[in-house]
């Protein structure tokens, strides 16, 4: 990856992090869009699994700093999702919008499953409701937002060769 492409990827990552801490609290939805997951997934497919795990861990730790009661759960989930995305990039990262959407959906859902499991706060019906209802809805919202953002950021992330 060239220096320019790296810089653009970092820029897109920063932009998504900013969106996560501005748009998401402003909207205040019950099934929020997770821009951090989108950022980690988009970064993970451009680096090796080890680096992706590190990016995920760092991002998760930053997110966990605002929820000390679940400290580490976000880092663990992001690490898993980042590494998995990097390993599976050959399968999923084809130039297909629907596939991208599915990629984001699965990534966010997997993140939520690992997160609530590692958090150990929810049990029984509440856990099932979260995993089977709210998490898929949130994953769907994240997938839609991810696809839209990917289409908007495509010139930045994948510049055409001159």
């Amino acid at each position, binding site marked *: 990856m060239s220096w320019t492409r790296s810089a653009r990827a970092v820029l897109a990552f920063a932009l998504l*992090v*900013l969106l996560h*801490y*501005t*748009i*998401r*609290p*402003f*909207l*205040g939805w019950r099934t929020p869009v997770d821009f951090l997951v989108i950022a980690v997934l988009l970064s993970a497919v451009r680096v*090796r*699994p*080890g*680096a992706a*795990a*590190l990016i*995920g*861990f760092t991002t*998760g*730790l*930053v997110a*966990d*700093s*605002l*929820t*000390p009661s*679940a*400290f*580490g*759960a976000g*880092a*663990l989930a992001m*690490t*898993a999702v980042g*590494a998995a995305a990097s390993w599976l990039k050959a399968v999923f990262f084809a130039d297909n919008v629907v596939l991208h959407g599915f990629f984001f959906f699965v990534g966010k859902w997997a993140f939520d499953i690992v997160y609530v499991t*590692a*958090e*150990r706060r929810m049990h029984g019906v509440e856990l099932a409701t979260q995993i089977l209802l709210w998490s898929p809805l949130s994953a769907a919202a994240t997938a839609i937002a991810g696809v839209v953002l990917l289409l908007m950021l495509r010139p930045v992330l994948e510049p055409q060769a001159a």
Partner: protein
Amino acid sequence: MARAVRSGTRVDTVLLVACCVMALLATVLPLNLREAIAGGLRRTVVAPLVSLQEQAVRGRSAFLSRDETTSRLDSVALRNMQLARLETENERLRALLGLGRELQWGFVSAEALRIADIGEEHSRTLTVGSRVGVEPKTPVLAPEGLVGMVRTVDPNSSIAILWTHSDFAASAMSADRSAYGIVYPHLSEAGRDEEIPPERYLLEMRGVAFRSALKPGTQIVTSGLGGVYPAGIPIGTVLGELRTSEGWARTYLVRPAVRPPDVSNVIVLLPKRIQGQSLDRVWRSTASADSAARRIAAAGDSLARRAAADSMRAAEAARRGADSAGAPVVQPGGARPVEADTTRRAPPRGDTLRPPTRRPDASEPGARP
């Protein structure tokens, strides 16, 4: 090449395992240690993001509270509008009570319901009928003056035409009885002077003797001729003379005392009250219909009634003192001796037992006026 790939894979695995172990360790750290690390991150690396998040949350709160504030303002404005309407209605009802007190007997009060049909804007349905003594051609009054006349009567309701109706006519005179004529609704714009503003609802007084010139502002009242309307009911005020082709009589444009949109509650005079009865005393100060209306309205005021009762008691005490001293009886104002009216008593008002009815044309709370 294969060795390099294997080496890279090993590094990836090591990094992944390390990250996972660190994350798992973070989840099992003691709470104070987790809080210390999280706090450190929040105060340093994450501080700008925390600030952004706080601003976003504040922005959302402001956005939501703006909606709430707007809705509160709307509610207050709506209540204010309703308050003004209620005040107006209360004022009119007080005025009607005052008129009833001045009339004393021989009338019923009614609600005048507006009919929404096309062509029916010049008539009202009254909520009283023949069961309480209403008959056709009985006058309909408002505190300000003449409203119109009952045309058809049913047992429990009747239909009255307003003075705007093309069939309306009333024998009229100037308040000083210097000029007589017939008042009709003014249906055309022709013949007006330039200084008379165009208005939709006006009357004209026709057939005034040529020698009887009326100045603008002259009060016009019913003359009592014809037996339909008792004398002394205010009709309106002269605006100016209309130019007509008639050379032997004058026609005057009259601003009516009662505005049709204000007609909601009225008083219907019963036939026995009309026969040979003048209502001059009701609207005593016909030189100023406004002041008369205010006086009538004040008579409906309970405080004013209480004050009047107090003064009556004081006058009664004074009269007893005077009787014992052989002095003549005087009214509280000391104007003239009291004439005891033993010929008739005010009958009970039939309308006092009438159940309250809601006007179907009354606007719903919150509706735009």
